[in-house]
């Protein structure tokens, strides 16, 4: 709860109406609940309109008169599975179709592999009429829970970690509510009408509690815990009667809890009325703020559908905004990177500009130098190679063709020649071995061809190379 001067802002608030249509609103702040008292629902609507009270989500109770309570045992592992089974069990529980009712369920206990479930069933149109009262004040609840569950939740919130069977007693002005609980699971409830005589009322309540206790101890051999809340004089009378009871079969442990106080918004003095409704509102708030129990929420489907649609729209909007932001971020990153690159390019260009003036022609000169060096390299080498070839060629061999080509820096000489004998052609390679420039000669082809005049001649092809290094020496 956020309080700004006289303004209260909260995400969750519960609302309960008294018989005189006074509204009790419960909000939570600083770890404790605060119940606010409004003279009427219209006054609450006015406070909402004036924004002195701003609530995002409302929780209201469904009165027990509207609620049909059924106990069923189902072979379910958990409450969710049981709830799915209850949907099929509904026709056997009430003579109404599933569309005509709203239902919720809670766990009552487990017996071996059977889960005992309490099913709360309300006719949809009756619930809609009940909620119409709140709608007229501009309140569309997000949570509707049976008032007995709300009261049970309040008792659990004020007496934590209860073990074993417990009877919760809320003594009001005109009626007393008895709620049976086991291991914090709601078992059932009973309403006792109260008269004007406090002593008689206390006797009646104590008798009923002992009666309940006898039933519970028949199955569970543990002491019964009784939690009392209500007007102090009545509660002390009931406590006295319970302590005075001499039943050897029933042992009771009595705990008295203070009832919640109700104040006017912005005031400190306590209101005398509306304590019972404050209990409902506080319990309902505990249900709303505690662990999510969707199966105890009896809000009609239409209300939730609207909420889900709203949630879907909000989520779609969030995704859209995030996507746009992502695209914008990506675009911005690229734009920033491009700007940085443009700056870097400009910097490099600025560095290049003065150097170009000084060293701009060096590359042109270097390229020309290289090509001239290539042109002038190995000058005279062809003549030298031919001269050496002439010297090395044996007398028995005649050369008919010669091809000189350059491949990179290596000069290749292809020779076509004739010899009288095949061994003579191959001896040519030995003769060249001693040469200064010519590299090892290879006979690549040789064949003996008959002459027209008789005899034969050997025609051969040979290849040798002259490779020049930088110093011009033979490798």
């Amino acid at each position, binding site marked *: 709860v956020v309080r700004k001067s006289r303004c209260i802002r909260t995400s969750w608030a519960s609302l309960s109406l008294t018989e005189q249509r006074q509204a009790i609103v419960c909000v939570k702040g600083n770890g404790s609940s605060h119940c606010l008292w409004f003279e009427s629902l219209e006054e609450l609507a006015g406070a909402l309109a004036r924004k002195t009270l701003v609530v995002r989500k409302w929780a209201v109770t469904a009165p027990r008169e509207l609620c049909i309570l059924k106990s069923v045992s189902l072979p379910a592992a958990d409450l969710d599975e049981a709830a799915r089974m209850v949907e099929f069990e509904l026709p056997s529980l009430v003579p109404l179709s599933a569309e005509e009712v709203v239902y919720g369920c809670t766990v009552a206990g487990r017996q071996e592999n059977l889960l005992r479930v309490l099913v709360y069933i309300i006719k949809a149109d009756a619930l809609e009429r009940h909620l119409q009262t709140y709608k007229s004040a501009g309140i569309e609840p997000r949570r509707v829970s049976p008032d007995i569950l709300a009261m049970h939740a309040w008792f659990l919130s004020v007496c934590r970690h209860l073990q074993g069977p417990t009877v919760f007693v809320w003594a009001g002005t005109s009626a007393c509510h008895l709620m049976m609980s086991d291991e914090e699971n709601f078992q059932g409830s009973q309403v006792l009408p109260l008269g004007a005589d406090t002593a008689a009322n206390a006797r009646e309540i104590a008798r009923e509690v002992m009666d309940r206790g006898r039933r519970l101890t028949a199955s569970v051999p543990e002491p019964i815990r009784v939690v009392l809340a209500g007007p102090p004089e009545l509660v002390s009378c009931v406590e006295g009667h319970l302590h005075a009871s001499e039943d050897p079969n029933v042992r009771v442990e009595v705990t008295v809890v203070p009832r919640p106080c109700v104040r006017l918004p912005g005031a400190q003095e306590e209101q005398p009325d509306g304590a019972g409704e404050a209990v409902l509102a506080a319990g309902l708030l505990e249900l709303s703020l505690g662990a999510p129990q969707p199966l105890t929420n009896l809000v009609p489907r239409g209300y939730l559908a609207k909420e889900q649609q709203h949630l879907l729209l909000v989520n779609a909007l969030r995704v859209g905004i995030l996507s746009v932001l992502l695209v914008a971020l990506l675009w911005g990153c690229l734009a920033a990177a491009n700007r940085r*690159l443009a700056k870097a390019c400009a910097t490099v260009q600025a560095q290049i500009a003065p150097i170009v003036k000084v060293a701009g022609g060096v590359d042109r000169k270097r390229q020309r130098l290289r090509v001239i060096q290539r042109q002038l390299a190995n000058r005279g080498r062809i003549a030298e190679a031919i001269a050496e070839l002439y010297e090395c060629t044996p007398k028995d061999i005649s050369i008919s063709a010669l091809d000189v080509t350059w491949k990179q820096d290596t000069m290749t000489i292809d020779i076509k020649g004739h010899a009288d004998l095949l061994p003579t052609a191959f001896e040519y390679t030995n003769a060249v071995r001693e040469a200064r420039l010519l590299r090892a000669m290879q006979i690549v082809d040789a064949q003996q061809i008959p002459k027209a005049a008789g005899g034969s001649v050997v025609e051969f092809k040979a290849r040798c190379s002259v490779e020049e290094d930088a110093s011009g020496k033979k490798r």
Partner: protein
Amino acid sequence: MKTGRQTLLAVVTAAVILGTGILTLVIEPRRQEHKARMVQLHDLQVKLAKLQADLLVRNRIDEMYKQIEPLIKNTGNDQQEISAFTRELSDLYSKLNVKMRSVKLLPTVREEFYRLLSVKIEMQGHIRDIVRFVLLIEAHASPLRIEQFGVKARETTDEVHASFLVTKVVAESGS
């Protein structure tokens, strides 16, 4: 009535189309620009490094270039250069006792800062004159080079048929 799956498919399809459209129209041009700028920056850095390296060797290159500059000087357009080149060759073989069979001009190879002129010559004559022609080319003051040289024997002794591919380098006009 639309089922949940149809709605999901429609939403996914719309999201994909929208996403693709946004990427194509908004992101892709920026990405392309980024890529182009990266290439430009790289090229500029390479150019800068090269220029800085050139700066270090500038004096040595200048000295060497001064020596070869007369060899590579540009005397005009392609036609004028080819004319001068063929004249140089004819001056060489006219002194020899050879018979020219053909002189073929090959396409000029254009580089950034120079041109390579090529001429293919076929002649026949005594082997001694052919070798002398080779020596004359290789000793010529101009940057001439014999790229290919071929000799084929003829029926008469020491008479040969020779072919030459001779090249010459000249500076690119205007550079």
